[in-house]
């Protein structure tokens, strides 16, 4: 039995400990906002937070989550009130939308660590998240906009 929390809810899981956290989140917990894209930490679609750090859940065995707090896109904010979600809305970032959960989760860690990120900071933090639709220019704008909003209202 592996015990951890997902979006502040306790999970006791009876599963093969080598199962990637991604598939536990999607198939056992039914939280399908976290996406499968590559299975080898190349694309970032599966990005979640584990004890506040961005991890690629497709290559993270669920055993590594034991005793930890996992946050998925569903836990970022239930009502789109996170400044990143607001900024993504205002910049109309998503196209197909498939990668955007991972983009937002990576950006959330960036903004926590660097509340006023430079373009270089954005490059560094977001390089692991591929968007095939090419929403990068809008992602960049939205991160700057979220940083401004957070500076005014405080990041949740």
């Amino acid at each position: 039995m592996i015990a951890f929390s997902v979006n502040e809810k306790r999970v006791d899981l009876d599963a093969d400990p080598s199962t990637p956290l991604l598939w536990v989140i999607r198939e056992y917990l039914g939280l399908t906002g976290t996406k499968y894209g590559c299975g080898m930490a190349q694309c970032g679609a599966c990005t979640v937070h584990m004890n506040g750090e961005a991890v690629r859940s497709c290559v993270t065995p669920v055993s590594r989550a034991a005793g930890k707090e996992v946050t998925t896109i569903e836990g970022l904010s239930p009502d789109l009130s996170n400044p990143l979600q607001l900024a993504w809305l205002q910049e109309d970032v998503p196209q197909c939308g498939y990668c955007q959960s991972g983009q937002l989760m990576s950006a959330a860690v960036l903004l926590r660590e660097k509340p006023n990120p430079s373009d270089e900071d954005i490059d560094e933090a977001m390089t692991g998240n591929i968007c095939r639709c090419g929403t990068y220019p809008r992602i960049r704008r939205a991160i700057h906009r979220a940083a401004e909003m957070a500076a005014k209202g405080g990041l949740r």
Partner: protein
Amino acid sequence: MIRRKISLGSSAGMERRNFLKASVMASGGLLIGFRFAGAAALASAETSPTSFMANAFVRIGTDERVTVIVNHSEMGQGVYTSLPMLLAEELDADWSKVGFEPAPVDAKYNHPAFGMQITGGSSSVWSGLEQFRQAGAAARAMLVAAAAQQWNVDPASCRTESGAVFNGSNGKLTYGRLAEAAARLTPPAQLQLKDPKTYKLVGKPIQRLDTPEKLNGKAVFGIDVKLPGMLTAVIARPPIFGAKLKSFDDSRARSMPGIRTIVAIPAGVAVIAETFWQAKVARDALRVEWDEGSMHDFDTTKMMQDFRERAKSPGTSVRKDGDATAALETAAKKIEAVYEVPYLSHLMMEPLNCVVDLRSDSCEVWTGSQFQTVDRANAAKAAGLPNEKVQLHTTFLGGGFGRRANPQSDFVVEAVYVAKAAGTPVKVIWTREDDMQGGWYRPAFLHAIEGGIDASGNPVSWRSRLVGQSIMAGTPFAAMMMKGKAYDPASVEGVDDLPYAIPNVTVESHQAEVNVPVQWLRSVGHSHTAFAVECFVDELAGLAQKDPYQFRRGLLQKQPRHLGVLDLAAQKAGWGKPLAKGMGRGIAVHFAFGSYSAHVVEVSVAEGKVRVHRMVCAIDCGEYVNPGIIAAQTESGAIFGASAALFQELTFAKGRLQQTNFNTFPVMRINECPEIETYIVGNKEKAGGIGEPGVPCAAPAIANAIYAVTGKRIRRLPIRMTEAV
């Protein structure tokens, strides 16, 4: 409000009896507890006791919700917003109450021009323009008639605004309050459409309706669909195209946890398990023997050598103006170049997947389809059921780029076979490697061009010869798409209509027979013809010692819309102004899918590495609906084209594809992404496409910029400075 009268009977290919059918319907629940629609549509289905189905495209609830039923798939290009905008415009709906719902498969949702339910060819907006406007206008007329009846006034004395009908001192009646009465009325025989000058929504950068649910994990893509009792399958697929299953040993796999069934199907060996990961691990533990077949020694290097040989002889004539060969002989100067592009994978972020619930007398399919009519027919055939017993539910598509419009419905048909074996609902998921190695690529092409100029530097001759596979040959659509031609128009589109004023032009096509499955990929033939044509025009400009922009201008004097985007991009980019040392500027212009596009690109090259710094894009897509979406699609196309130009190549050795995942078939990342500016030429020309036209110019503009800074020509993609000449 100025309205123009049009007759419904004249609408493009639409059957009136299908189009205008009004009924009071109890709002059925959506699919098995899943949200397949926008927030507004969901609320409508859940809370509205009755609703007014004015016609196939719009439902108005007594709670004021307006649900637009969209017959094109949302794969990022914005149709779940732009098509509802057209309908809401004519309806005078309250935009905050408008939602969307994917259309079921039905002939009334067929593409007006293609006669099938399909999303492709950058055609959703131009083909839906009249359809959605008329649907909105028809619903509006019925609501107005209902209000007029209640007030006992002439309908002509009523006006509509923001979801309500108004009539002087009678005040207003909202659409929700009129819904039930309107549903009992007969649809109007004649409709009045708005004068575009009075548009309130169309033409404005309205935010997309599907954004909120794409920011909190709620949007349902095919891979997210879950049914009660559903199992998940992963398939061991042939390692070589055309290889046949000889035998398999599942002694290890079948005892693994969660494994229910392991079975041979036409696509390979399906491993059906309780979860994806169980199925994937067991699939990888199978020992499968394949009869490798005729492609066992297929090699792309050798194939391109063959293409090069073939280009030395004349091909099937595509276009012949004057005598290009004779004009070459008398030209003052001449030049030849051979351009090569590789196979490409669509590489949607969401790998292929399909959910099937097969019963003895019915079948339901959930998938991100671009090709509903064909997918349903192929599913029905595989299931042994008549078409009408098969329902196909279109989910959000995590990217499409053409791959999810497969003539054989490969990813749907195999899932039906898996469902037969499973005896339960089943979801087939392709791993990224399965998806990349599964074929249906943009075909590799070789394009040899010879050209000549006269003593004044004016081009007098152009001879193009293309060698590559047809995407149409052998498909059920060959007859329709090839239109009796001896060549595949999709192979030569973008060079067959060479717009430059050159008196002698020859275009010839060689159709290569290679057993690699190929298919349309975003911008199709234009994805390679624009590269060759726009690079070669630059080479001719160099031969004539003329500025590449001015050289093009001189040859496009009779092409005002080419000229329009070319000038706009050049002006906005500051063409001719000095650049920092080590930087070069390149230009390209191209017509595709009814729209005109030009790019000016700035690059630097250091230690063999190309860096794209800035892309200035001008687009003329005629009459448009949502400039925000046009800008997004233009950026998207530029990045898609630049990704292919800089990084992407599929190669085969000993029959096996050498690339497997994003690490070997890279996509542009944010740190590599240039500044992109988009400028829209506003005009009232016939609406063109926007999903694809932004792609073709990227590669040639980058290649031409590399020449500007290094003096070296790029003739093969992806760009490698070691191969520059």
